[in-house]
C-alpha cells in the first residue's frame, strides 16, 4: 500500500517539478531552503504514514489526514492516540501547499513548522518530545539510508527539521485542481458544470457573497483569502465568558503554556481562535478561511466540525453566522457576515456548486 502510494506521489512530485500545474491552481510555492527532490518526496510520504511516531504506535499523519477521505478523517474533531479527542476538525492536506499559515489559527507559518506539532501534542501523537520519534528513525536501516541520500546526514545527525522538511515536500505534491468548476471557469468548457452549479456559481460570487473570503482570481482559485474571520462558529462555548477566557488564556501563556497544546485540550480557549496566537483583540474567535476545493469530500465542516452537511453550512451563513435565528451573535463577528436572505432553491444551487469543486486527482489519491 505504502509502496504503491509512494510511486504515485513521486509521479505527482515530478509533475510539480515539471511545472505542469493543475488547471485552476497557481504553481506550488517551494521554499528556497527546501527544494523538491523525488527522493525527499518519497521519504516524506513514508514518514507521513509511519504510525510509530505516536505514544501507542497507532497514529500517523495519515490517521487524521487519510487519502481515502480526501486527506481528512471525516470526524467532527480528530482522534489521537488512545482515541483521545482534540477540539478541532482536521483540515485537508490537499492544496495546503498554498496556505500562508498552517492550523486553523495560523499558529505555524509553514508546512515545515506544522508537522512537528502533532506527534508531541497530548491528544494527538502523545509523545513527550521528539526524541522517541527520532530514535525510531535513527535505528531504522531504510530511514538511515534514505536520510543519508536526501539530506547527506548520518543517523546521529538526523533532526526533526529533516523530518519536517521531508514531510512538507511530500505535502507539496498533494495538490488537486482540474475540477468541473476549473474546466468551466478557466477553460471555457460551458458543459463542465450543470445548470444548477452555474446558478450556484453566480450566487457564490454575488448574492451569497462567499467569494469575499473564498477567493476566485482571474487565472486561478484557491478559494481562500488566507485570512482569519470570526463567522460565529463555536461562539456559544465562550458566550458571556469572553473576558475570563481571554484573561485565563493570556495568564497561562505568560506562565509558559504551549499554545498548540492549550488550544487542542481546552475547548473554551480553543474558541479564542487567532487571538490565542496574536493576542490581537480584533481576532477573538477568528479562524482561517479554509479552501473549498474538494469540500464535498471533507465533511463535517467548520473548525470544530459542528456542521454536518454543506446544506447546514449554507443555512448557517444564510442566518448571518448562527444555526437558529434566535441564537445570539458574537460581538466579535466579522462585519462581512450578515443574513443573506437566500431562497431554498438558491441554497440548493450553492450546495450543487460546491460539488463542482471536487478534483479528479482525488480519485487517484484514493485508489492508489
Amino acid at each position, binding site marked *: 500500500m505504502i509502496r504503491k502510494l509512494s510511486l504515485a506521489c513521486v509521479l505527482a512530485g515530478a509533475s510539480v517539478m515539471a511545472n505542469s500545474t493543475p488547471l485552476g491552481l497557481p504553481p506550488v510555492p517551494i521554499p528556497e531552503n527546501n527544494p523538491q527532490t523525488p527522493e525527499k518526496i518519497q521519504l516524506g510520504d513514508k514518514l507521513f504514514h509511519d504510525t510509530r511516531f505516536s505514544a501507542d504506535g497507532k497514529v500517523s499523519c495519515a490517521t487524521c489526514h487519510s487519502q481515502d477521505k480526501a486527506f481528512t478523517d471525516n470526524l467532527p474533531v480528530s482522534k489521537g492516540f488512545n482515541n483521545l479527542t482534540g477540539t478541532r476538525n482536521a483540515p485537508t492536506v490537499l492544496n495546503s501547499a498554498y496556505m500562508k499559515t498552517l492550523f486553523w489559527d495560523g499558529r505555524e507559518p509553514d508546512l515545515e513548522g506544522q508537522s512537528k506539532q502533532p506527534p508531541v501534542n497530548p491528544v494527538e501523537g502523545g509523545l513527550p518530545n521528539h526524541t522517541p520519534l527520532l530514535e525510531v528513525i535513527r535505528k531504522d536501516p531504510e530511514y538511515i539510508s534514505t536520510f543519508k541520500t536526501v539530506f547527506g546526514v548520518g543517523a546521529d545527525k538526523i533532526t526533526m527539521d529533516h523530518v519536517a522538511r521531508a514531510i512538507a515536500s511530500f505535502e507539496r505534491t498533494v495538490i488537486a485542481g482540474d475540477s468541473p468548476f476549473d474546466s468551466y471557469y478557466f477553460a471555457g468548457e460551458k458543459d463542465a458544470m450543470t445548470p444548477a452549479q452555474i446558478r450556484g456559481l453566480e450566487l457564490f460570487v454575488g448574492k451569497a457573497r462567499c467569494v469575499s473570503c473564498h477567493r476566485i482570481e482571474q487565472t486561478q482559485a484557491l478559494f481562500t483569502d488566507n485570512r*482569519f474571520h470570526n463567522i460565529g462558529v463555536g461562539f456559544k462555548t465562550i458566550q458571556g465568558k469572553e473576558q475570563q477566557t481571554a484573561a485565563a488564556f493570556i495568564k497561562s501563556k505568560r506562565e509558559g503554556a504551549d*499554545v498548540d497544546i492549550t488550544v487542542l485540550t481546552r475547548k473554551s480557549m480553543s474558541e479564542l481562535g487567532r487571538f490565542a496566537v496574536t493576542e490581537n483583540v480584533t481576532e477573538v474567535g477568528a479562524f482561517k478561511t479554509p479552501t473549498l476545493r474538494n469540500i464535498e469530500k471533507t465533511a463535517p465542516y467548520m473548525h470544530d466540525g459542528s456542521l454536518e452537511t454543506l446544506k447546514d453550512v449554507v443555512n448557517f451563513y444564510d442566518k448571518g453566522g448562527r444555526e437558529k435565528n434566535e441564537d445570539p451573535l458574537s*460581538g466579535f463577528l466579522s462585519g462581512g457576515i450578515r443574513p443573506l436572505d437566500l431562497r431554498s432553491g438558491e441554497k440548493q444551487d450553492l450546495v450543487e456548486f460546491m460539488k463542482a469543486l471536487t478534483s479528479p486527482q482525488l480519485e487517484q489519491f484514493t485508489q492508489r
Partner: protein
Amino acid sequence: MNNYSRRKFLKTGGALLAASSLPISMVEMAFGKDSEQNFTFAYISDSHITQIEGNKFVRNWDRGLIRAVAEANLLDPRPDFVFYGGDIAQLGKPEEIDHGLEILSALRGDVHYVMGEHDYYVDLGEYWQKQLGPDHYSFNHKGVHFVVLNSILTHEEWMHKKWDSGMDRMKQMARLDNPNGQPFMVGDKQRSWLKADLDKVSKDTPVVVFSHSPLQKIYKGWNFWTDDAEQVQALLKPFDKVTVLYGHVHQIQTNQIGNISFHAAMATAWPWPYPSTYTQQESYLPKLTVDMNRADPFFERDATGWQFINLHSGNVDVHYTLPDNEARVVAFDEKLGHPVDTKYQAMADRTSPQKHY
C-alpha cells in the same frame, strides 16, 4: 523552521499585536515612579449609527461599534474610564442616539461623551444633552486635567435661521464639499468658560482636551477644521504638556503645534481618504502625519478603528491598530519634542499611499 525561529514567530506575533490591535484608544498616564498615579483610559469614536426605518439600522456601523465595545471589554487591567469621541448618530435622530447608547451600555466602566456634529444639528444637541448631560465640561483624574469641548458649533445666525426642519439643517451640515456648509467653532461663550476653567489649573498639570473636530485647521471643505482653533490653542499655550484628542476625521493624523500634541482617532464606522487625495481647496494636512493606505474595499473593517495610547509623563504614545494589518505606533519623541511615527517616519520606510482613485 527550527524551534528557535518558531518560538520567535510566536513571540513576535504576540508582542506585535498585543500593543497594536485594541479597538479603542487606550491611554496610559504615567507619572514618574509613583504607580498610584498611573492609569489608563480607552477611546472609541465616530460610529455613525444609521437608522434605516423602525428598528432597522445599518448593520455594518452597528457591528463596528459592537466590536469596539466587545474588544474594549477585554482590556486587562481595566481602563479607568472610556471616552466616546462624538458622532454616535448619523443624522442625530433620537432613535440613532438611543440605539448607539444601548450598544455602548455593554461597556464595562464609566463613559465620557463628546458631542459630534452628527449628534447636534437636527435639534441643536437637545436630545443628546437630555441623555448625556452637558456638551462641555472638565474634571480632574489622578493629577490630569481633562477638558471636553463642543467644537462643532457654528455661527449663531446660521444655526438659528429659519429652517424648514431641523433635519434640513442636519443634512446641510452632514455633507462634504457643501458650498452652503459652515465652519465649526468652539465659540466665544465656550472659550470664556475654558479660560475660566484653565485659570484654576496649575501650569505643570498635564492637560488632555477632547474635541470632535480637530482644534487645528486642516481642510475646510470637509470641516477638518475649527475656525477659532488658534484662539483655543492660545488658551492652552501656558501649560507644559497638552494633548488634544479628536475624532471626526476617521483617520490617523499627528501634529505638534508649540506645546500641543494632536492625535486623531479612527472611526468604528468607515475611513475617510486623506483630504490631500481629494483637495479642491487648500489643505493643511499636518506635516507629522504619515498617511494610512487606502482602505481595502473588500475588507469591511479595513482602516476603521481602534488605537491604544500610552501617556508617558503627560505625553501621548498612540498605538494605532488596524484589524488584520500592521500596527502603527506614533510615539512622543522627547528629543524632538513632538510625536513621530516610530516605523514609517523615514520616507524610505513608507509604503506610498495611492494618491488617486
